[in-house]
């Protein structure tokens, strides 16, 4: 998106209420993972042209971290989910 995000907790809100962190497709490696796995996690990006999942923080709203699936060419938002709930399968 570039204008609005529909927060699963707060409803439709403008970009100004959010802070964007970046790629939500990354998984933090195990502490003892190889150095190159860590390098990959911290520094390398797919940076896709098309569908992309990103972490957005509703910093001026409910302060939840969201996973926003968005098209980087059309900016169309395909889905928004609460990151923690998505990870835990809906039960925090």
């Amino acid at each position: 998106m570039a204008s609005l995000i529909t927060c699963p907790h707060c409803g439709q809100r403008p970009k100004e209420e959010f802070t964007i962190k970046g790629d939500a497709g990354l998984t933090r490696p195990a502490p003892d993972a190889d150095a190159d796995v860590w390098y990959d996690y911290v520094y390398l990006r797919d940076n896709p042209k098309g569908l992309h999942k990103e972490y957005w923080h509703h910093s001026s709203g409910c302060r939840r971290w969201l996973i926003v699936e968005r098209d980087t060419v059309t900016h169309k938002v395909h889905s928004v989910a609460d990151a923690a709930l998505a990870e835990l399968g809906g039960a925090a």
Partner: protein
Amino acid sequence: MSSYRLSTGGQIDRARSIKFSFDGKALTGHPGDTLASALLANGIQLVGRSFKYHRPRGILTAGAAEPNALVTTGTGGRTEANTRATMIELHDELNARSQNRWPSLAFDIGAVNGLLSPFLSAGFYYKTFMWPAGFWEKVYEPLIRKAAGLGKASYEADPDSYEKCWAHCDLLVIGAGPAGLAAALTAGRAGARVLLADEGFAFGGSLLTDGDARLSAMLAEFEALPNVQCLPRTTVIGWYDDNVFGAVERVQKHVAEPDPRQPVERLWRIIAKQAILASGAEERPLVFGGNDIPGVMMAGAMRSYLNRQAVAPGKRVAVFTTNNAGYRTAADLEAAGIEVAAIVDPRSEGEPGWNGKAKVLTNSCIVDALGGKAVSGVSIAGASGVQRLEADAVAMSGGWSPVIHLACHRGAKPVWSDTHAAFLAPERQEGLLLAGSAAGLWSIEACLNDGARKAAEALEAIGFAKVEPAFAEGDTAQRAATPFWFAKGSKGKAFVDYQNDVNLKDLGLAVREGYGDVELAKRYTTNGMATDQGKLSNINAIGILAEARGVSPAEVGTTTFRPFYTPVSFGALTGVSRGKHFQPVRKSPLHDWASKNGATFVETGLWYRAAWFPRAGETTWRDSVDREVLNIRQNAGLCDVSTLGKIEIFGKDAATFLDRVYCNGFAKLAVGKARYGIMLREDGMIYDDGTTSRFSDDHFFMTTTTALAAGVLTHLEFCAQTLWPELQVHFASSTDQWAQMAVAGPKSRAILSEIVEEDISDLAFPFMSARTVSLFGGKLEGRLFRISFSGELAYELGVPAGYGEYVADAIMQAGQKHGICAYGAEALGVMRIEKGHVTHAEINGTVTPGDLGCGRMVSATKPDFIGKAMLAREGMQAPDRPRLVGVKPLDPKARFRTGSHILSDGAAATLENDQGYVTSSCFSPNLGHTIGLALIKNGPERIGEKVMIWNGLRNEFTDGVICSPVFIDPENEKLHA
């Protein structure tokens, strides 16, 4: 002086006169006039000069695309350059001036450029002005810069206000012409929330030009529909993602003296479920010699001035048209008693049904308009050769271009239509429908039908039950358009982009030189880069490029349509966030306390913090700071530290969580204890530091730096919610809940003992203790921490914010006999540098714990914490990384400053020899000389080494020596007293 006001007709209020001025000349007009119509009514046709050749220019259009009639209005801070006379609603005291001319509009020296035009062709400046080297910047460019630009902006501050707002609707209708009105009526009747915006001051569009009787009934119906909000004088400027539209309402641009309680402009951010673009069509100029001479006008504009403001363009008008618009204008001119010299039509069949007086010359075109500052006649080329006709005005119509800009703001490309000889908006885009002329329909009936039908369609798409269109489906048959790109055989300059003086030959040259791509031609010739953004010129330019390249306009394509539709003021986009209100102010609960103790405040982020507390007789800030520091180290001081970030951390997994976000251990922190913690980023660099205390098994209290209070909370939430959502941990920011006071100095315990009930002796409450305490005999509860940034025996006391001032007063009173003083951020800074404590001057995002001498704090035993893996990289552990040390001058009288670099003694001043830099420095009143902290390669191994403290920026070169970063009490005796 050939244009004039007709004695009857029009939609102006002749009963009332409006006084205004143009270039200092006092003139009058009527309500219902624009500045343009009023100037024409006063016989003023020369209104501006073009950009490059300073050609005399008149009024070409009656709308937002006007390229010529740009004027400067207002005076002082209300000066507004480049305003379209065609869009200015006439009002009393309007003061308008012409632009880009010297010494006067009528006699403009710059017009000499016209004589040089053979050498000033498109892009000529890329090929010359290069010799001799150095002349470009000294000679050529200053001259070019002086000549460039149109109007002159003011440096005076604007006395008027602006605002922004949000709006929500089911349907946004853009344009209140027939299609827009029909759409809004349809949706309004269906009960939808409708916004109807139009850039003009009167709704109606072509219904106004036509004097269509249905208009008043439609407007009356809106009065009875509270769910339809009408926004006249409102230009929708951009279409953004998720169907958000920007619009600017000119709230008070049409009044002599704005009401200070209202803004002059308002930015609307409209969240629309559906929108209908009913912005009409732009009439295209025809490209022929002298098509810019004042008196040459768009046929539709001429008709609009005639019918709406009863302004006649002249006494004898030549019409040059490729479509029925010219005939309509001719008919209305004749009806108003104005002679039409001829209708010149390049089409072989002309327009069927013409029954006016004027003769029609088919298969003909005007090749040149004649005249200088006004039209005197035209040259017409036809089958029988070239003939001249007398005329004092020319109406031209090269066909219609649907105004589809907004529909292309989100990346979609316009599509060429041979039938319409125009670019149309791309097929269906989510949330936006086009209606009426914007969709390529030319008749009013077709537009009414289309608007109503599209509104029904839009509402049904968002769940409204079947909606009844307000107008019935009618006959929408229309004739195919005939493109006509330029007249061949012109003698004079044939302009394509009027304002930028781009003419036919320039485009030919661009193609010849390889800049024939539409985007390159635009950049090379500047066609389409004027204030109208090519609204009038682009389609003709595309047609001309297509002919020159021998391809169809579809293949040439368009340049990109971008926001804004028309230019938008900084004021509207800024709203109320101006001056002192640029950003909101955050005030500490102890602000008033500091204020009454005489504090000098300094901006720290959004906060105002007390910097120092000057007393009588102190002439410089240093006097005050030195006194405060010495007094604290001797006696005691009280400092407001409420702005530090404070976060309550709850949950059964809070300790585990903290262990993972800090690089040092927290899991085993005992209840009642505080610990200094360093938080890394995942890349291993230090993010922030602070102390965290434990109040119970599942309740911690974290402090952060002022600068990163918000960032740290966001970081914690990120870790808790995305990395380890399985941990039970909750955060509450309590920065604003607590008034937090640092009480430092050897007497601090004695002072606090007077108000704190509990035993706070070193034994009972040693260094790094934290607990809830009872104050004033149990009348108030607070939190006491024995922590120290100054290196002194020190405490931080937190009380609920509202009690802050009372408690601070009480501490000052209790401390009076102990010599307490209030101190500010500057003294705090001096003391922390004396003690070698770091802040974000050192934690600059590129240092590791090891760099700051805290390498041993990094847990070697914890399996995981943020930053652990990346901290292990070779470069992060390299021995020659800049590391924290102290620096001091060899000569105690010598001074140096923060930001100075460090060079090895005797080394040449080069970047290769750079050893590091001074991160913080101050005068230490305790030591009597300047001290500094520095990040220096191999620093700790070089203590005792003589160095040059190099500040070439200020020509200050100080001999110094590397030393320990702890200048005072290295054994921490004072801290543990």
